[in-house]
C-alpha cells in the first residue's frame, strides 16, 4: 500500500469511528452503552501500554500504577473542588509526574529491562498496600477521605467544563469516553509520525545505533514512559467517571496482566491492536460473566495460549499481512498477462506503520 492510499484509509477509519461513537446511543440500550463506555476507558489504558511497549520497547508490568494514580488523583480533586475540570487535568498530570520520577530513576540509573519489569510490578504492589491501609479519618486529602480498602464511593462524575452544576448524562459520558479514545489514538498516531516518534521507534529498534548517532536513549525512553503514564492516568479518570468509585483493587496485578494479554492478542507494535484486543477480551469476559459454565480466567489463559502458539504476532498484524499478501498476489496476476517481469522487491513493512 502506498502512502496516500494508506492515509486516506486511515482517515476513513477515524471518520467511521467518530460516526460509530455518535450514533451508538440510538442503537443500544443504556446498560450496553455503559458497558461500551467502560470498554473505551479500558482501551485508553490498553493504548498507554501499547504505546510504551510497542513503540518504546518498554514493558511495564505495572501500568495499573499510573491508571490507579490517575483514578485517585481524579477522585480526590473532584471531591475537593466538586468540579471534574481540574480533576481530569490532575489525573493526567500526577501519574505523568510519577512516571517522570520513576522513569528517571530507571532509565538514567541504567537499570536493565528485566529489572524495569520487576520495579514497575513492585511499585504497583506498594501502591496497592499504601492505598489499602488508608482507612480512617487520618487519611484524607482536603475533604476527600481515601477510605482504605473500602475505597472512595460517590465520586463526582464528569461535568461540563468549568460548569460543575451541569453533570453529564450517561449518554454524554459515552461521547466523552469514546471521543477521548479516538483523540488519544489520533494524538499518539501523530506523535509517532513526528520526529520524536520516529526517534523513539529507532531507539526501540536499536538503542546502540541511536546513541551512536547522537540520540540520548535515556531521554527518549523517559519521555515515552511519561506519555504512557499520562495516558494511563486519563484512562483512570474515565474509569472513575464510569463507576463513580475508586478503590485500591484498581492497582490489582491481574489487571496489569490483562492489559498485556489485550496487547498480545490485538498485536504489539500497532496502535489499533491494543484497542481491538481490549474490546474483544473485555466483551468476552463480560459474556462469560453472565453464565456459570466457564471460569473467566481459565478462558483468558486458554485464549492467550492459543494466540501465542498460532498467531504470535496478534490479530491486527496477522490480518494486515494477509491483506498485503493478497494484494500482492492480485497485482502480480494482473501483471503477468502483459508479459512483465515481476521482481520480488524486498517488501514487508516498516515497523510502526499501523
Amino acid at each position, binding site marked *: 500500500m502506498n502512502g496516500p492510499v494508506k492515509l486516506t484509509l486511515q482517515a476513513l477509519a477515524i471518520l467511521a469511528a467518530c460516526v460509530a461513537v455518535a450514533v451508538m446511543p440510538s442503537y443500544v440500550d443504556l446498560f450496553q452503552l455503559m458497558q461500551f463506555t467502560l470498554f473505551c476507558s479500558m482501551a485508553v489504558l490498553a493504548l498507554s501500554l501499547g504505546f510504551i511497549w510497542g513503540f518504546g520497547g518498554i514493558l511495564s508490568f505495572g501500568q495499573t500504577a499510573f491508571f490507579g494514580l490517575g483514578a485517585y488523583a481524579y477522585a480526590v480533586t473532584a471531591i475537593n473542588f466538586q468540579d471534574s475540570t481540574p480533576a481530569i487535568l490532575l489525573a493526567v498530570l500526577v501519574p505523568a509526574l510519577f512516571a517522570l520520577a520513576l522513569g528517571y530513576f530507571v532509565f538514567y540509573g541504567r537499570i536493565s529491562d528485566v529489572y524495569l519489569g520487576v520495579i514497575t510490578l513492585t511499585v504497583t504492589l506498594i501502591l496497592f498496600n499504601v492505598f489499602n491501609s488508608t482507612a480512617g479519618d487520618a487519611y484524607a486529602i482536603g475533604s476527600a477521605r481515601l477510605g482504605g480498602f473500602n475505597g472512595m464511593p460517590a465520586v463526582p462524575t464528569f461535568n461540563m467544563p468549568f460548569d460543575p452544576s451541569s453533570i453529564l448524562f450517561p449518554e454524554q459520558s459515552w461521547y466523552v469516553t469514546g471521543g477521548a479514545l479516538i483523540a488519544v489514538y489520533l494524538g499518539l498516531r501523530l506523535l509517532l509520525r513526528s520526529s520524536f516518534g*520516529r526517534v523513539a521507534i529507532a531507539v526501540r529498534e536499536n538503542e*546502540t545505533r541511536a546513541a551512536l548517532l*547522537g540520540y540520548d536513549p535515556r531521554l527518549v525512553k523517559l519521555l515515552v514512559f511519561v506519555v504512557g503514564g499520562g495516558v494511563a492516568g486519563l484512562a483512570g479518570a474515565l474509569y472513575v467517571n464510569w463507576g463513580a468509585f475508586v478503590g485500591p483493587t484498581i492497582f490489582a496485578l491481574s489487571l496489569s496482566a490483562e492489559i498485556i494479554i489485550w496487547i498480545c492478542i490485538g498485536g504489539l507494535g500497532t496502535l489499533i491492536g491494543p484497542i481491538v484486543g481490549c474490546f474483544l477480551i473485555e466483551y468476552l469476559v463480560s459474556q462469560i460473566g453472565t453464565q456459570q459454565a466457564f471460569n473467566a480466567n481459565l478462558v483468558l489463559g486458554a485464549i492467550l495460549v492459543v494466540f501465542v502458539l498460532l498467531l504470535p504476532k496478534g490479530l491486527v498484524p496477522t490480518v494486515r499481512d494477509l491483506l498485503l499478501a493478497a494484494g500482492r498476489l492480485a497485482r502480480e496476476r494482473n501483471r503477468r498477462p502483459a508479459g512483465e517481469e515481476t521482481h520480488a522487491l*524486498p517488501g514487508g513493512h*516498516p515497523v510502526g506503520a499501523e
Partner: protein
Amino acid sequence: MAEIAPLLETRNLTMRFGGVVANDDVNFALEEMELRCLIGPNGAGKSTFFKMLTGQLTPTQGTIRFRTHPIAGNLPHQIARLGIGIKTQIPNVFNGLSVRENVWLAAARAARREASAKRAAAIVDEVLERIRLGGLAEAIVGQLSHGQRQWVEIGTVLAAEPELILLDEPAAGMTDEETARTAEIIREINRTRALIVVEHDMEFIKMIAKKVTVFHQGRIMMEDTVEAVLADSRVRDVYLGKKVAA
C-alpha cells in the same frame, strides 16, 4: 610556534576485561584530515579501541582527547554529538525500518544543529545516491543482503556528517566491486574529514592507506607508511605471514 594539536589523541589507554587486557597502554594520535588504517590479527584489540573512542566502553585507564574535549568515559550520544561517527564491525542498523528512515535518522540529528527539515531531506537524497541504494530506499533494511546493510550503515555514518569517521571492517562481506567503491568513497570523504579504518584486506589497505598503525595483543606494535609496514618482518610474522605468502 606550537605544533597544531591533533584531532584525536589517546594517552595510556587501557581496557581490561577481567584478566584479558584488550588494550594495553595505547598512545595514539591522529591529525586533522588524516586517513589512518588500523591493522592487526583478530583479537588484537582494534574493535575495543573503537568502542572506547565512541563511548561504548569506559576505559579502565588512560585519557582520550577529541580536539579540546576529554571524552574517555563519556556516553555514546555525547561523543556522537561532538562529531565522531562509527560503522561498527557487526552491522548496527535499524533492521525493522526502511533504508530511507535509517539515513533520515542520522541526517535529522545532524541537521538539528541548523534546525532544518529541508537540510535533512537534502542530506538523505545525497547519501542515498552516494551509497547507491536510491532504488531500494523504501526497502526494509533487515531484508537486505549483508553487503547492502553495510552500505546502509556507512550511509547513516555519512549522513550524520561527523568530523571523524571510524570504520570497523567496512569491506567485510562486500564484492570486489563494492570494495573498490568503498575505497573510492573513503578517499572522497577524506578530502574533508579524518578517518580511521580497520581492515584485514591488504589490497584494500593499499588502495587507501597512507599511514598504518599495527595493533598486536592490545598494543601498538608499529606505526609507519604502508610500504614500511608491509616490509616489516615482525608484522609479517604476527599477521601478514600467511596472507602475503599465499
